[in-house]
């Protein structure tokens, strides 16, 4: 573990989540995700850095639906990291699994080794019929064909918040940084913050009795905590 100032984490309250997928579109808007089309989507190549997994449990009429928003879990013991031969994915000092697009040669090993399947590959150069490209966020680079991409915890927003705080000569406060998905969530089901700060909301939620982690048994030590539904 790093001695860095911050260790970013997220808590997702499944008791609040309504499965509305506002987060999915927020992510598209923030991160210039490549646009799919029917052909690419049919081939399983639609890109959603965050997705809402839905499962039906039981049989009618005693049937329930489970919605689980899944994004990169930013594992501390990330299986995607050691397998990259060219260090295109690595662990930064704030605990993020960072993907360096320019360094990626496209072995896609990281994608195979991600048990959460949150890594997406650019099979072609992305295309936006003009003038849709006017919407592109200049803070986020457009990925070329042949490289992997995935959720970054909106690293550009972390950077902007840090810059803002620095400009005002103050430390970063809990709640200053909000990735696009967290920001957009109507039910406020997602909380983002610094796990190094024991007082942060996310740290406290991570300690809650409802907190679990996805595929915890694999020992990947994700930094996304799921607060299970209370009943």
């Amino acid at each position, binding site marked *: 573990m790093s001695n860095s100032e911050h260790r970013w984490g997220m808590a997702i309250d499944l008791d609040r989540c309504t499965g509305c997928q506002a987060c999915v579109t927020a992510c598209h*808007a923030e991160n210039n995700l490549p646009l799919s089309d*029917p052909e690419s989507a049919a081939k399983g190549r639609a890109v959603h850095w965050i997705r809402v997994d*839905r499962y039906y449990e039981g*049989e009618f009429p005693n049937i329930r639906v489970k919605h689980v928003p899944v994004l990169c879990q930013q594992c501390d013991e990330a299986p995607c990291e050691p397998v990259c031969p060219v260090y295109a994915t690595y662990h930064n000092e704030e605990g993020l699994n960072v993907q360096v697009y320019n360094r990626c040669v496209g072995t896609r090993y990281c994608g195979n080794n991600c048990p959460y399947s949150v890594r997406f590959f650019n099979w072609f150069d992305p295309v936006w019929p003009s003038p849709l490209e006017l919407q*592109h966020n200049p803070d986020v680079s457009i990925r070329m064909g042949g490289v992997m991409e995935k959720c970054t915890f909106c690293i550009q927003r972390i950077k902007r918040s840090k810059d803002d705080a620095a400009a005002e000569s103050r430390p970063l406060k809990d709640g200053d940084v909000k990735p696009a998905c967290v*920001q957009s969530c109507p039910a406020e089901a997602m909380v983002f913050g610094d796990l190094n700060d024991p007082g942060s909301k996310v740290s406290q939620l991570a300690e809650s009795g409802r907190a679990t982690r996805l595929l915890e048994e694999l020992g990947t030590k994700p930094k996304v905590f799921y607060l299970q539904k209370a009943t």
Partner: protein
Amino acid sequence: MDRRNFFKIVSTASAGVAATSCGKKEALIPLLVPEHQIAPGEEQWHPSVCTECSAGCGVIVRVMEGERIVERNGQKFRERIASIKKIEGNPLDPVSSGALCARGQAAVQSLYNPDRVRGPMHRTGDRGKAAFSSMSWDDGIAAITKAISATDKSKVVFLTTAPAGSRLAGIQRFLQSIGAPAAYTSSLADFSIERQAAQAVFGWTGMPDYHVSQARYVLGVGADFLGGWVSPVYYGGQFGRFRQGRLGIRGKLVQAESRMSLTAASADEWLPVRPGFEPHLLVAVGRLLLEEKLARAAEQLPPGVTESILGADLQQLIRSTGVDPNVLRRVARELGESEAPLVIGGASVIHSNSFQAIVASHYLNIMLGNVGRRGGPQAPHPASDVAAANPNVVEALKAAQVVFLDGENPVYTLPPSSGVAAALASKTIISFGSFIDDSAAYADVILPSHHPLEAEAAVVAMVGGPATSVAVATPFVRPLYDTRPLEQTLGDIARKLNVAFEPVTAKSFVQPLLPNGETWDNVALRGGLWLEGEANAQPLKPVSKNMQWSDPTFSGDALQFPLQFQPYLSVQYHDGRGANLPWMQELPDPASSAMWGLPVEIDPKTATKLNVATGDWVRVESANGKLDAPAYVHPAALPGVVSMAIGEGHTHYGRYASGRGANPISILAPAQETSTGVLAFGATRVRVARLEQRPSELIQFSPQDREQGPWGHR
């Protein structure tokens, strides 16, 4: 974006207004010279209003540099412009509370949609074929003026999607000044039954607001308030706090719906009520509450209502709903015993008796003593009474001579069985829309108005009452194309007609609502006028003194058409408007995970009977038409009930929506909700047959909908 930052970076919000209105003095800027105020890497946030639906979310819009190619005299130039990057909820706005739904965020893709109408056009081909060529604004306005002058003004029909607010007020004023009837809406998402039920029971005009966040126990009936009903953003926020926002208190939601909606999926319990038996379920619950002395305010019920509830045959009622009697009894008891119970009645799917259901839900709230209290239904804000809602739109359209389309798409949202599409063939049709959709394809003239993100507006929130909540937008980017504000076009027409017409601006709309000490500039800067308190609360003055319920009626012979058909409003497409947004097309459907096309949802039993598997194509046939679509075998669908989200099946609506999928409305019977005359889009019977061919694949993001595979682990 928090409040502090928001204030800090909101800059000269009204600077753009002048630039827009003074015509086409467009400076051509060569490469790399930034437009005024736009510096690379620097962001600005401007307040605006989302008009993707009529809930009226206040939003803030991130503006940064962008670059577009323009052609002048055959030469291409790169022009640096201010462009919109992202739309977020305005943290000051009580409706959005800083959040925003998927469709609202995708509004930027309608602004920058490659298929937007780029200037005035007139029809050059047959109606419905969408062949147009451009014309000048002057010619366009002259054509309209000519058409109106030659027409009996009572035969001018103006259809608009505009929510309560300045745009609608302006339209109404225009229609009034030329002597035409008030504007109509043809959307399926106008919730006019809910409004009329509130009027009947409480004497309120507008949508009641439900303070879900302060309730402890919510029984939702027919209202998919976390999905396609009213405002998923507002109620999503309420729901989050209802569940986990109060220390030691967790609200319980029981949802009775004939479909596993997003709300039903999020509920603690789902009661799969048979379609159209929502009134019966509510009356049964009312009866149980009265019987078990759990109706703490039973005395507030009009005597006629109490009588009719007590006169009901409980066993029969419960049996008709299809819900387990023990479960229903328990739910009624839990509801009655709850400290803060709340019943939300709505008609996400409109049946022949939906009005009765909503009326019953209101009486339940009355007997639970929560109306107007914390955690109960609240009166709407009086300013919201201007929403265009008229069930007689079909007749009006048929009788019309001149039809104005402002964002409305009646050819899509009204079933062909109503005869509207056929009737439109002989009208003069003028569209103010930004897209050539199914209806604009019939238009004679298209005079595109500014995109809402380029225009000014004041919108009264559909929820949040009785407090005043008006979101305000002032323009902050230059219009991308040769479009004009609708107000300006209407003004031009009025001038040509020699009619006195004072356009309604956002400012003139908000001004009368301003309390002492508040200024328009402040409101424009913040993006809205939000007042605490309930000064203007509408008093309770019940109109209806009794309550009825009747069995639903369905159009179509039950033997020939054994299945019930439920089109529904989805989070991604709303009433079909969202279908041209690529982000919505690729958003996995919450039920089926379908992308780029919507399936017909069939329950497993019926599917087995029909030998249909997910991905097979089926033909859904009613007495009024048929559609072909892929099937999704929905594990939670009610046996014998076939559902389909509204949104696909546009004949014309740009490259992302045209010719994709099927429109469930297209096979509906022209059935009406009995009490209100509104199109009962859930009252058609169908039969389903498997097709041998698969014209295309059902595209699913997650085809697997169970956590375990069909083999293996035992």
